[in-house]
């Protein structure tokens, strides 16, 4: 029993990708393997063996997240291993949250800052730092100087904390409210306004991904993707044979020899 528990213990395969929020991953449609590879800045994987050093197998797993995606250049700059001052900065405090209430496309009211009391639509979600970006609100002027001659400044939205600086708007009276998760009689999990008891539906934009708005509207790449009908076609027929036996039968290879007794140690 002890033997099997060691062999079959769950190994955390992609340590870096586990730190990324679930909403970020589903929006991007990227596999964990890729996110892990990019975050750890792995440029070459050495084969297994004592003759290979493990120095360049990837960078450390203590990441600092910001208002950017973990596979973007800004993130790599923030976690630059060559930056020595990074070592002495304390890790930023991030408040643990039990339930995530606000999704993309929601109408929210801003509770702090110069745009206090205004309402807007959630554009982006950065789950790792508990924050959202509201369209056109809580902006600052960002200097985008690129050398001499072309000076320009843009308005950029600053991220807002999801549980303190922003409140979801109740659609019945268009005022900010506190939210609770409850179950309907059908067994669906829904958001309910604590003040009025009204269900606040999750907007369709929350299910959008970078590639498609709904899974049915995804356009297949005719040269790369397998067609859905081909994927769902059942060709498996149960038979008393291994994979190798099936392939040998298909290619008319007969094997009648009886293997000699061997010893495993």
């Amino acid at each position, binding site marked *: 029993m002890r033997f099997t528990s*060691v062999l079959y213990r769950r190994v955390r395969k992609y340590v870096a990708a586990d730190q990324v929020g679930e909403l970020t991953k589903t929006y991007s*449609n990227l596999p964990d393997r890729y996110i892990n590879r990019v975050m750890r800045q792995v440029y070459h994987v050495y084969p297994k063996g004592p003759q290979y050093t493990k120095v360049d197998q990837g960078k450390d797993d203590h990441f600092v997240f910001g208002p950017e995606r973990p596979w973007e250049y800004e993130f790599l700059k923030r976690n630059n291993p060559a930056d020595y001052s990074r070592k002495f900065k304390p890790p930023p405090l991030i408040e*643990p*949250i039990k339930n995530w209430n606000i999704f993309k496309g929601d109408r929210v009211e801003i509770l702090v800052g110069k745009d206090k009391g205004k309402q807007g639509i959630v554009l982006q979600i950065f789950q790792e730092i508990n924050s959202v970006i509201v369209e056109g609100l809580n902006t600052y002027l960002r200097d985008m100087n690129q050398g001499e001659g072309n000076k320009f400044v843009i308005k950029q939205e600053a991220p807002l904390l999801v549980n303190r600086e922003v409140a979801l708007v109740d659609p019945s009276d268009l005022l900010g409210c506190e939210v609770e998760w409850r179950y309907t009689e059908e067994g669906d999990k829904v958001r309910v306004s604590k003040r009025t008891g009204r269900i606040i539906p999750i907007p369709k934009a929350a299910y959008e991904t970078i590639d498609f708005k709904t899974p049915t509207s995804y356009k297949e790449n005719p040269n790369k993707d*397998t067609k859905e009908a081909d994927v769902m076609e059942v060709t498996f027929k149960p038979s*008393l044979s291994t*994979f190798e036996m099936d392939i040998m039968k298909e290619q008319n290879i007969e094997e009648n020899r009886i293997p000699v007794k061997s010893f495993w140690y």
Partner: protein
Amino acid sequence: MHKLQSVTRMPLSCSMFLCQRHIQMLRKFPIQKVAAIHTTNRCLDLNEFFDEHKNWGASEVKVGRAWKKEELRLKSSSDLHKLWYVLLKEQNMLLTMEHDCKENHVYFPNPERLDKVQDSMENLEDVIRERNIAYFELETTHTGERPAELIDNAFGLKEVYTKTEYDIPKEVNKVWQEKNPPVNNKSRAVQKFLVLLREKLANRRYAQLAKDKQQVARIFANFKDVDAEAVQEKFPNVDVEEVRLSDKARGNWAP
């Protein structure tokens, strides 16, 4: 010569994305001025190591997701066998394109395609293993896989030892016996090493626990009315209630 003719089918504007050797070959063998019937035939040559022409220099190549295990379980053995080679060819093509883009300092579009292919290949192997294990367990009561054993190695540490197949038993195999002399991992030196190792690991654990406690105290001091259950979920080893009532967790506000 015959094989190289297909290389010349490429327009010269694309050659900037080829490697240096390819360009040399193009110069060596002049382009044929033959415009035969254009059909989308399968080119069975070195060109299969490269992507389609229209994807060269493209900023984005959209593809779907990897094959899931549930989908692969629907397929017969011969289908899986064919799919393996499709995936292997795709992987080779992507690795070639990645290398080529790196050499020419060009952006390689959608590098996650490589990971999707590798995920699919891993899933496919897992499905085949499942089927083979099911067969062997039914027929021979053990998995037909390479046997392994949990042993204590020379340092007294647990290690999974994968066994090897031999044609003679262990007792007779002199070569193996010379290479694998019996180790005494119950000796005094090993016991001493284990004690020191355990002490080191315990110290590391205590240090981590102290760090976590400090982090929890910082969270309580900085965020008013923070959800203690959520904190406990994130730091399962720390006694959150004890830290919350401690002096370090007091925030800069009136209680």
